[in-house]
């Protein structure tokens, strides 16, 4: 395993501080910003899942917007037509997305790389048509607007406004999904994912079940995207699946994974927040020129990739390693936080 860059005390401190800031955010900022933070959370959830598939297992998908859309519609329709509670829809969405993801991932056993990416593109192209055909929402359109959860009376102390309550709901779900992903990639299954990514034939000779790993990572990433969709519809109160939106969502998830740092646990989360704020910043740059912002965003994206080809988390790690090597070179005694250089050089 990789050497620890920080000691256990520092790590706990960072986690407490991060969660503290995340809890504090909606207390300080207004409804518009809180909605933006909540968006960053649900994009994070989807990116966490996609990172398991693309970062750890090396299977590129440009169709996860479809799974997101599925989760959004499933939650919206169950809440709207059947009167379900928001939280009650989550297990259903999780199981259903997992099963659909496994079915879609099945060709991955034989089809690899770009060809697989193209099959997932088909999914993203097809999903909006399916919605147009089978969903009859508000006024005959494909829009479904479920009732959004409101802040219950016992929570009025810390979340008097409904948008704050929705943010906290999203945050709680996001933290659960993050911890699950963390445990998954650091365990046996995570190592199997990497082995299959780096060389599937070699991985199978040491007893890794290729079918289970490949299809499993697809199913898990679909589950994450589905849950992200449910959270998304809870936050925005609107399920929609235009062709452009579905494709753009798929792209956004990939962008979050890559700018955050592929195959790092934190990467997708950092990437999702960066993405959401970069998008917002480029929109604010020329408020009356809405058309220009995607251009600036595209250019910013390309520049970011040039500067940090292994993502923000990957780049930070490189800086950290460099700094520690410098300290060693100057002959200062290694502190408790710094692992021996031998472990460093053989990750």
């Amino acid at each position, binding site marked *: 395993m990789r050497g620890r860059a920080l000691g256990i005390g520092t790590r706990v401190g960072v986690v407490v501080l991060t969660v503290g800031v995340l809890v504090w955010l909606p207390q300080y900022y207004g409804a518009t910003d809180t909605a933006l933070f909540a968006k960053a959370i649900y994009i994070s959830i989807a990116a966490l899942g996609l990172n398991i598939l693309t970062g750890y297992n090396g299977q590129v998908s440009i169709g996860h917007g479809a799974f997101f859309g599925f989760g959004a519609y499933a939650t919206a329709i169950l809440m709207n037509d059947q009167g379900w509670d928001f939280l009650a829809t989550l297990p259903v969405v999780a199981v259903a997305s997992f099963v659909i993801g496994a079915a879609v991932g099945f060709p991955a056993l*034989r089809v690899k790389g770009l*060809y697989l990416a193209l099959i997932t593109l088909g999914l993203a*192209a097809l999903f909006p048509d399916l919605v147009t055909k089978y969903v009859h929402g508000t006024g005959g359109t494909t829009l479904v607007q479920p009732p959004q959860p409101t802040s219950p009376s016992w929570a009025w102390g810390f979340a008097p406004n409904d948008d704050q309550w929705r943010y906290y709901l999203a945050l709680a779900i996001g933290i659960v999904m993050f911890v699950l992903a963390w445990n998954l990639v650091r365990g046996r299954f995570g190592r199997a994912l990497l082995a299959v990514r780096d060389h599937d034939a070699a991985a199978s000779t040491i007893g890794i079940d290729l079918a289970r790993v490949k299809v499993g990572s697809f199913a898990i990433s679909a589950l994450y995207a589905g849950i992200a969709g449910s959270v998304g519809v809870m936050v925005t109160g609107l399920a929609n699946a235009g062709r452009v939106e579905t494709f753009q969502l798929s792209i956004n998830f990939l962008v979050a994974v890559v700018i955050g740092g592929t195959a790092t646990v934190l990467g997708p989360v950092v990437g999702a927040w960066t993405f959401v704020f970069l998008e917002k910043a480029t929109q604010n740059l020329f408020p009356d020129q809405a058309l220009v912002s995607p251009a600036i*965003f595209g*250019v910013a994206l390309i520049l970011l990739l040039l500067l940090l080809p292994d993502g923000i988390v990957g780049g930070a790690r490189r800086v950290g390693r460099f700094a520690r090597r410098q300290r060693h070179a100057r002959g200062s005694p290694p502190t408790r936080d710094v692992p021996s250089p031998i472990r460093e050089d053989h990750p």
Partner: protein
Amino acid sequence: MDLNLFFSQLLNGLSSGAIYASLALAIVLIFRTTGILNFAQGEMALFSTYVTWWLADQGLSIGVAIAISVAVSFVGGAVIERVVIRPFEKASPLVIVIATLGLFLALNSLTQVIFGTDAKQLGSAFPDTVWDVWGLRVEAQTIGILVVLGLECVALWALFQRTRIGLGLRAVADNPEASRLLGIRVGTMLMFGWGLSAALGSLAGAMVVPTTQALTASSLQSVLVFAFAAAALGGFDSPLGAVVGGLIVGVTQALTIQYIEPLNDIELVVPFAIILVVLLVRPSGLFGSTQVERV
């Protein structure tokens, strides 16, 4: 079964298939020389098509406008390779894919900023003559598109197999390091490949717009999806595969719309189902070359 209807749908399918094939050829060309799947291909073609529209709007005849636009696109494609893609030469394929997606966003919004958001009308390069062949309506438009595709194929074949530049392009695609040692200017070849591909996209754009209603910023996005489908079906490294794949996708699409009632509005299922089946049997497409892996 109404044979006349069948053949007219077949012709429709062939003509839209030929357009998918044109753009698929552009995708394959870049993939073969650089190993990059260019997601911005459709938006590059979109920009070129707007250039064609602008030139025609200035009073040039449509043929001249297309010719100039093809030349402009060639230069533009080469510049994009040099400025945007070359810095990523050593990056991982996933990073390059994201970079082309950035290009996609940038070009799409740039097009709207420069040319405006209102829908444009672009005339066809072909006369609107209609021939009657044994009771079957055959439009000059349809035949024209197929002829252009045929010419593109012949020209590409001649370029790759019969010229020195083509030999260089093939060498670079096969082994860039060895080509460099042999004195081939790899960078120039890559720029040439991107230029060529942008020029093909420009032709595809000029052909697709008159068959649909109008030119808007999203005109080429569904065409791109089908072109990708065509390239996957035929095999990403096979120009012949791109053409055959494009025609298959176009024809199945047209026939599904006409004949399979339950699939109305979701006729996209059919081309992708075909691709899925083909890829399950032949994972590198119909004509793609298979990679042999050693452990």
